[in-house]
């Protein structure tokens, strides 16, 4: 008896605490630090910028349905605050509980549709197909131009973004070609092997690409002719699971950029 009373009491208290905690977690944050200018250093520098100069939050683009084009500018974001969400019995996640079936009564019908999260169909639109074709053509063009120029790549050690002696020799050649071809633009892609996390490898890839860029600048190449991009481990040159493939993928890939 005593134990049962105590257990019930404890259950109620724990329940209360959970309710209070839950209440706290839904409270919105009022942070004083967010009223700063949104313009600080937001303009795109270098890089083959798309049509609009990117300033945070002001170059939104309403994509067409189907994940297609990006180019129509729009100044608005969707309303993401939870208060804008239609409140669909949040406690039970839309569940209605069981119906009584005493006396052989049938439960009432519940019609099921899209499964809670409605998904728009991605129809590869004409603009998407064109975009994919553009990407393919541009890549082929870059590859051909880089092969013709004889540009050399730089390879890195595990977890490392330090340029080796061999890498310096390659970049000395690359720098000669770039300086000798006025008006040419070069892109340095940072790549990583498959080990480690996707996210950190993007940062590591950028460190590698920037190390290459900085060395080329040291050799006298104008920084404005060099763009960097990191692909992390997302665009590997090979897919085998051994050191010689890993070595191929830890790379600063130097490419003549198509204009």
């Amino acid at each position: 008896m005593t134990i049962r009373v105590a257990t019930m009491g404890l259950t109620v208290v724990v329940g209360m605490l959970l309710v209070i905690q839950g209440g706290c977690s839904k409270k919105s944050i009022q942070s004083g630090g967010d009223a700063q200018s949104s313009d600080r250093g937001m303009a795109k520098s270098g890089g083959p910028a798309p049509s609009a100069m990117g300033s945070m939050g002001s170059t939104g683009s309403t994509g067409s349905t189907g994940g297609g084009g990006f180019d129509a500018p729009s100044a608005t974001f969707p309303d993401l605050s939870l208060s804008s969400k239609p409140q669909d019995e949040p406690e039970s996640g839309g569940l209605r509980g069981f119906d009584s079936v005493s006396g052989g009564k049938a439960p009432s019908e519940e019609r099921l549709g899209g499964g809670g999260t409605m998904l728009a169909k991605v129809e590869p639109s004409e603009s998407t197909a064109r975009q994919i074709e553009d990407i393919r053509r541009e890549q082929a063009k870059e590859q051909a131009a880089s092969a013709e120029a004889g540009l050399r790549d730089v390879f890195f050690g595990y977890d490392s973004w330090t340029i080796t002696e061999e890498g310096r020799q390659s970049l000395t050649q690359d720098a000669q070609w770039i300086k000798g071809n006025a008006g040419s633009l070069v892109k340095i892609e940072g790549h990583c092997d498959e080990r480690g996390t996707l996210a950190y490898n993007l940062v590591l890839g950028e460190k590698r690409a920037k190390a290459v860029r900085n060395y080329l600048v040291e050799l006298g190449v104008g920084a404005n002719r060099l763009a960097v991009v990191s692909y992390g481990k997302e665009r590997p040159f090979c897919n085998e699971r051994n050191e010689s493939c890993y070595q191929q993928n830890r790379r600063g890939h130097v490419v003549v950029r198509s204009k």
Partner: protein
Amino acid sequence: MNRIIIGLMLALCVVVGAGLLGILDSRATDVFLEATRPDFQKIPIGVFGFQNGGGPEWLGGRIEEVLKADLQRSLVFSLVDLPGIGVKAREVSTADKAIFKQAAENGVSVLVWGKSGPRNGSADSELSMDGFVYDSGSDEVVGGKRYVGSTSVVRLMAHRFADELVFRYTGEPGIARTKIVYVAEHGNARELFVMDYDGYEPKQITADGFLNLMPRWSPDRRFIVFTAYRSRNTQDIDILELATGKRWTLVSMAGLNITPALSPDGNFLAFASSQDGNSEIYKLDTRTKASHRLTVNQGGDLSPTWSPTGREMAFTSDRGGAPQVFIMSADGSNVRRLTYEGDYNAAPAWSPRGNWVAYVCRTSQRLYKLCIVSPDGQKRVQVTTGPGIDDSPSWSPDGRHLTFSSTVDGKSHIYMVDTDGKNLERITFGGTHNSSPSWSPAL
């Protein structure tokens, strides 16, 4: 006797007082009470067949199979092998009290069965499923559900029934109707897909032809934020509305724009950008569009993940040379290191209950596995073991499972595992590369 009661009441007051103090102190870390005790006794449940009344041949079996898998994964129930305890009936009706009694006497608390077939027995394309529940505690058939819909929602019928059962016995909405957004190789590109939490019904949601990476859900499940490579050479952070396919660019700065994460109230986007030189964490107010840099140092800072209250973030930083997990307040103050074991800890994900941060830990054998650590750093557990590179852990909304990518079977695929490392389950089988899963919030 009375003295015992008074003593217990006093003890309760102390507990309440301490609890309230903890809550009122806004600086306290986000450690919640465990809603499920570690010694939680699973509820023994028995599932009879779902009698097929003239529907497609697979119908009853499919419902039973999906329901059983859901109940097992809920970790609320333990499935009882009914024939194994001598209950031989396959199909039952509400009137079969003797069979229920026999199962109850053999330790089964809840019994479930049903029937399925064309709606109203007619030959139209609509199907219906009836499910019934017997509870040994009350020795009664406590209720039933009837779902109707097309053949495409048969799995959903079973998922919904499973969630109703979880809700009835725990007050939580269950995870059987949750979804996972992930990246899959598609042609030469990586595109976003959304699938059911058990790996079925994958649907493509982007078709850009290059790289779309690191998708995350909005707290209301209506949107996905992710990194999109625009023109192959710059990365933006985009947001996509699932119901319409409409898309907006939230962040478009020079350099990396990666690892976006919306705050629990949807008002802020935390992300990493290298526009100021090296990768730093920023916070964008989605209402005013003002942005604010949170980290300032020479190392790379990335992968912010919000605590469930929105008061803190965990993130990866290599400010000490190698990547480690740190915690800071949501305004960037009060930074402290969380992980100390090993020289590579990254990709943190704060659990929805607040009591763990999952992350990728590199072991002494240089394997990339999943670990969890309490936000005060006191408890640390390695969750996965063995070969394969594990990456991108993401919590189920009930806090009992993690989904992640692993190369344990060769190519990268999506898996789920309980937080104690049990019930490792592969959930993608097709394709050449599936990665970066993010588990949706509960409905």
